[in-house]
């Protein structure tokens, strides 16, 4: 038995074909490379489609424009959520999993043919659900709460997509086993791979929750099941719906470490501390799903308080650790690169012209200040009541998924194009400004939706003027201003997003080929040094805690956090007078 397993491994190893990366020296499995390319391309296509739908949503929410009819609005909103929250993100994450396992571990990919089966299932599932939505009888929005019923193909497409993604996760785990067995790396797996493992683990829980709820809902849509309990649906669905966004958090934090390592040679401040923070994610991050259930009367306060205000804070602690160790690792590396003057020379002289670095750092700052702080506010049972199911919720998750995850994925694309597609990034001047445009646009969207939500604007309503309602209701004039600004910043984000898609597609189709001579230059402006391989693919800490700039930055973050948190308690006291 053991002999046949060894023989199978040997045959697999012989069958694999590799090329040598001129930058890192890593052996790149060509089968893994092809799968990374396919998943990344599918991701960008769905981002382009979903981004257009997002612009239409924002232009309809802008009261002065109010572009779409109500029927079209809900159709487009459903398609937007599906394409960007699920398809763009998960396709890209599968590419990240293959990269973090086969490429960083110098290994062959486990079962590449199964990888193509997974890709086909995800693609067919994604297209099937899109077609179902565009046919007009599945405008149930991303949450698809029962008793609203979509066409059976809507649920079937999601199930096929989830099965494909699950196979991708199994291939990632299989590759870890192969790499360890064939000793392609020494000691523990690199931190970036550990972050990807965290994303993979959360994906298992996410996809299992999705299967538990979507398979019966599909049967219900076919008429085989007569009734789905609405609250039970909501509970289990959010096990998938919110946890899928936690896959993003783990993946984009791993990407922060990756980009910091490649662009400035950053090593984690402490491997133990960063891995401990990822462990917090593994154990507690999925529990944040409970914040969607905080106003459900059928669940006890014990369940709500434990899952949000206790357990979720342990995951928040994990995020705050990463929020310190990523800029800290950059500062440590930059000081080693010679930028030692004052508290911030390391930051001023960081490679801001490199779109990978700029996108990563903007993603880090915006995710922490906008997404992180608003997430804690939403996860606190008492102050959640002011914003529950208002536009504050989409404002929060645009801060996490768009300024956090999407921006990080865009940033790493500028490294993936030369390293994996072996093409020089096209339109380098446009590429330099793209992360800034997208970050300002998406940051504005998040802020102004949260502003409108704080003023009570409903999360899902098509028309905030309630023009056809029997009973009139007026939101404050500031809410109209917020949604107008939201529309303007959505246009800016769309310009940034469109630039990203154009640059990526043009580079893949017509970009100049990367050779051994120009490989390092193709990664963009970087400090003159670089042991990319050592920084990215090996275990090891930076070995310093002399980080004055980082301590100042995180002090600013903590002060903002505390002030905003208590401002919300002040709002609550005004909303709910005691005495």
């Amino acid at each position, binding site marked *: 038995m053991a002999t046949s397993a060894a023989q199978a491994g040997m045959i697999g190893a012989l069958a694999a074909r590799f090329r040598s990366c001129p930058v890192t020296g890593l052996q790149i499995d060509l089968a893994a490379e092809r799968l990374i390319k396919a998943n990344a391309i599918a991701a960008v296509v769905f981002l382009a489609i979903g981004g257009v739908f997002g612009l239409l949503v924002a232009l309809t929410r802008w009261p002065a424009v109010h572009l779409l009819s109500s029927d079209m609005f809900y159709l487009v909103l459903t398609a937007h959520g599906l394409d960007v929250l699920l398809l763009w993100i998960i396709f890209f994450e599968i590419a990240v999993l293959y990269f973090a396992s086969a490429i960083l571990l110098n290994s062959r990919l486990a079962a590449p043919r199964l990888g193509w089966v997974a890709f086909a299932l995800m693609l067919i599932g994604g297209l099937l659900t899109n077609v179902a939505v565009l046919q007009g009888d599945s405008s149930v929005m991303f949450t698809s709460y029962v008793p609203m019923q979509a066409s059976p193909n809507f649920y079937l497409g999601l199930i096929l997509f989830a099965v494909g993604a699950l196979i991708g996760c199994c291939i990632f785990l299989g590759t870890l086993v192969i790499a360890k067995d064939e000793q392609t790396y020494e000691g523990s797996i690199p931190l970036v791979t550990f972050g990807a493992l965290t994303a993979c683990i959360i994906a298992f829980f996410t996809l299992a929750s999705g299967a538990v709820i979507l398979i019966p809902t599909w049967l219900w849509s076919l008429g085989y099941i007569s009734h789905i309990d609405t609250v039970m649906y909501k509970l289990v669905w959010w096990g998938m719906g919110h946890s899928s966004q936690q896959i993003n958090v783990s993946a984009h934090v791993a990407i922060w470490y990756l980009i910091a390592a490649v662009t400035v040679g950053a090593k984690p401040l402490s491997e133990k501390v960063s891995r401990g923070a990822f462990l917090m994610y593994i154990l507690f991050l999925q529990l944040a799903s409970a914040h969607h259930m905080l106003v459900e009367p059928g669940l*006890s306060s014990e369940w709500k308080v434990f899952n949000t205000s206790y357990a979720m804070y342990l995951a928040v602690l994990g995020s705050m650790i990463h929020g310190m160790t990523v800029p800290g690792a950059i500062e440590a590396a930059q000081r080693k690169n010679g930028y030692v003057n004052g508290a911030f020379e390391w930051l001023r002289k960081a490679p801001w012209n490199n779109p990978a670095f700029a996108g990563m750092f903007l993603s880090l700052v915006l995710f922490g200040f906008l997404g992180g702080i608003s997430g804690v506010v939403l996860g606190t049972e008492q102050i959640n009541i002011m914003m529950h199911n208002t536009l504050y919720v989409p404002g929060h998750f645009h801060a996490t998924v768009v300024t956090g995850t999407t921006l990080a994925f865009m940033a790493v694309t500028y490294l993936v194009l030369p390293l994996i597609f072996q093409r020089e990034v096209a339109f380098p001047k446009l590429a330099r400004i793209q992360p800034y445009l997208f970050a300002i646009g998406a940051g504005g969207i998040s802020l102004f939706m949260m502003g409108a939500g704080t003023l009570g604007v409903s999360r899902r309503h098509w028309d905030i003027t309630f023009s056809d309602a029997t009973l009139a209701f007026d939101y404050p004039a500031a809410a109209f201003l917020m949604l107008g600004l939201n529309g303007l910043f959505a246009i800016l984000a769309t310009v940034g997003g469109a630039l990203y898609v154009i640059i990526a597609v043009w580079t893949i189709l017509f970009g100049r080929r990367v050779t051994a001579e120009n490989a390092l230059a193709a990664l963009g402006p970087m400090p003159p040094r670089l042991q990319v391989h050592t920084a990215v693919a090996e275990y090891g800490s930076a070995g310093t805690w002399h980080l004055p700039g980082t301590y100042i930055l995180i002090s600013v973050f903590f002060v903002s956090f505390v002030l905003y948190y208590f401002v919300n308690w002040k709002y609550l006291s005004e909303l709910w007078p005691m005495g």
Partner: protein
Amino acid sequence: MAEPTAAPTARERVPFMQRLLDNPFLLLFLGVTSPAVLYLLWGVMELSQIPIAR
């Protein structure tokens, strides 16, 4: 005369946390069990105890 070098590092006891963090399948078990019990099962138990309206 110099002391002989220490015994091979293979004999060193690997710390518990490192063994935990180096075991992807144990982490997978913990990562699925924790939310399955604390969020899903606990929640389903509470919801299933709500009396049916008549």
